[in-house]
């Protein structure tokens, strides 16, 4: 299967950083997921082959890490932190608001494939709580109104 040139150059470079091939596995899985959208059987088989691992060994690692997924997600993955610092500043309401607005629950995806929603653990934005990440972008000091604006922007970007 084919990855982008950027993926291939990063992969080749990373292999030179460690004494064992396997060490590149975790970051490589995330890079592959970023390109393909999820870790498909094909991706798993390809990376296992490159790193002299079995498919099962790769799956075993995937199931440990919360960011890795073997199922397709929306183009924009909305991750609302509800851990303590965010909870104290209204993240439960924020998460409920996202559920209502998007019409989906935890780990759900909208029918148009644009958004998925996830309740996540601490993302390191405690002093700027409540916070959410959309894919890798941080959005902080949120209120339901601010969240609406954030989602509007992604919707506009995603349907252009």
């Amino acid at each position, binding site marked *: 299967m084919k990855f982008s040139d950027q993926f291939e150059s990063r992969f080749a470079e990373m292999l030179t*950083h460690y*004494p*064992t091939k*396997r*060490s*590149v*596995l*975790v*970051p490589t*899985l*995330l890079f592959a997921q970023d390109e393909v959208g999820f870790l498909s059987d094909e991706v798993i088989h390809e990376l296992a082959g490159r*790193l002299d691992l079995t498919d099962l060994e790769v799956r*075993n*690692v995937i199931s*440990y*890490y*919360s*960011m*890795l997924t073997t199922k397709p997600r929306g183009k924009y993955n909305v991750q609302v932190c*509800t*851990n*303590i*610092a965010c*909870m*104290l*500043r*209204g*993240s*439960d*309401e924020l998460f409920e608001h996202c559920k209502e607005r998007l019409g989906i629950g935890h780990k759900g995806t909208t029918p148009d494939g644009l958004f998925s929603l996830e309740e996540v*653990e*601490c*993302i*390191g*934005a*405690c*002093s*700027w*709580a*409540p916070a959410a*990440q959309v894919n*890798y*972008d*941080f959005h*902080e*000091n949120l*209120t339901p109104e*601010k969240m609406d604006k954030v989602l509007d922007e992604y919707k506009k970007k995603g349907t252009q």
Partner: protein
Amino acid sequence: MASLVSHPDEVKVVSKRFGQGATSLDRYLELDGYKAVQKALGMQPDAIINEVKNSGLRGRGGAGFNTGMKWSFVPKQSPKPKYVLCNGDESEPGTCKDRLILQHDPHTVIEGVTIAGLSVGAHVGYIYIRGEYRYLSEIMHKAIKDAYARGFLGKNIFGSGYDFDVYWHGGAGAYEVGEESALMESLEGKRGIPRIRPPFPAVIGLWGGPTIINNVETLASVPHIIMGGADWYAGLGPPKNGGTRLFCLSGHLNRPGVYELPLGYNLRKMIYDVAGGIPNGRKLKAVVPGGSSTPVLTATETDVGMDFDSLAKAGSMLGSGGVVILDDATCMVKFAQRIMKFYQHESCGWCIPCREGTDWLKKTLTRFHAGGGIKKDIDNIQYLAENMLGRTFCPLGDAAAMPTISIVKKFRKEFEDHLEGRPCPYKEMGVVQESTVMAD
């Protein structure tokens, strides 16, 4: 994003280059960058270790072990290569400081890693950055590339004849990987399952070689110690608690933010002076002093110095510097439930007391908070948590148990208030504090 704050009581050491454009290598050099590593190149390895030891620098990740001491455990001779591993898997709830260091001052981290390498005779360092912090990996990627281009990394660094390579490594979402032995497993491309110790990583670590593992903030403090000297750094804090640290103030506060204060700074002052007190005319109920795993303090226990030893004396821990403030409208049962939900989610399942304990405690606390609790549950929660202590490979089990025990002991009445199907008396908790001063 992740806006900066300041207060006159701050002593800026690690944060002194924040907001100064120090991600640019030229700017970093203007701000005295890469002087410490050049100075260290002219020192004997033992002299570097002694300087760090005497500075009183203790691990900023949570355990609070003397950093120089940790380095001194690395054997001088080793048939296998030695490594430095910088722990940037910041994920202890309440903690958001390494993020700022990596964002504003990535070259200091590279310098710290290099100096640690010089002190033990390692030639490779890895900077592990949690997967969620992708933008910081990109910043670090560029910083490392720039440092190589100038000959600050790679073969013959600064023309010294010493070779040192630094690479960044990305995670993919796992709290437990912040534990040092799980961190090594993850870097080796495996599930982040902890290793049993001894042997400690300083003797047998990455790929079997002796490995120094330190938190981002710890290593970012090292160049300042080399430049300013051990006595200066030690003098900033109380005895055996050298220096400053980044305190991440969050929760019910008027001015939450990350502030750099000397160790030993009074907690009460931190809440009311530095962070502007509690909004909406509410009163203080409890404080999490060092990340979600540390025992909570009640409002009457806050006249305490924020250093490792003072907090230990007060029955808690300085931990990771994540200070979470709870006002009097907060439900402590719900708070305990949320903490346990987190640890249950993050437990890797390797050790039974942690796997089963966190699951049972989460279920019990959830049922209890929903009004389905019986009196016996309160003792059971404490008993279960106490039996997790010290019975697991890694400290995740303790991390789940310690706050739970403290909440049951100190807020037992709140548990009793939930009995007999009564609704939670603290419904208001979680209302967004619109009065806060912080702008977007």
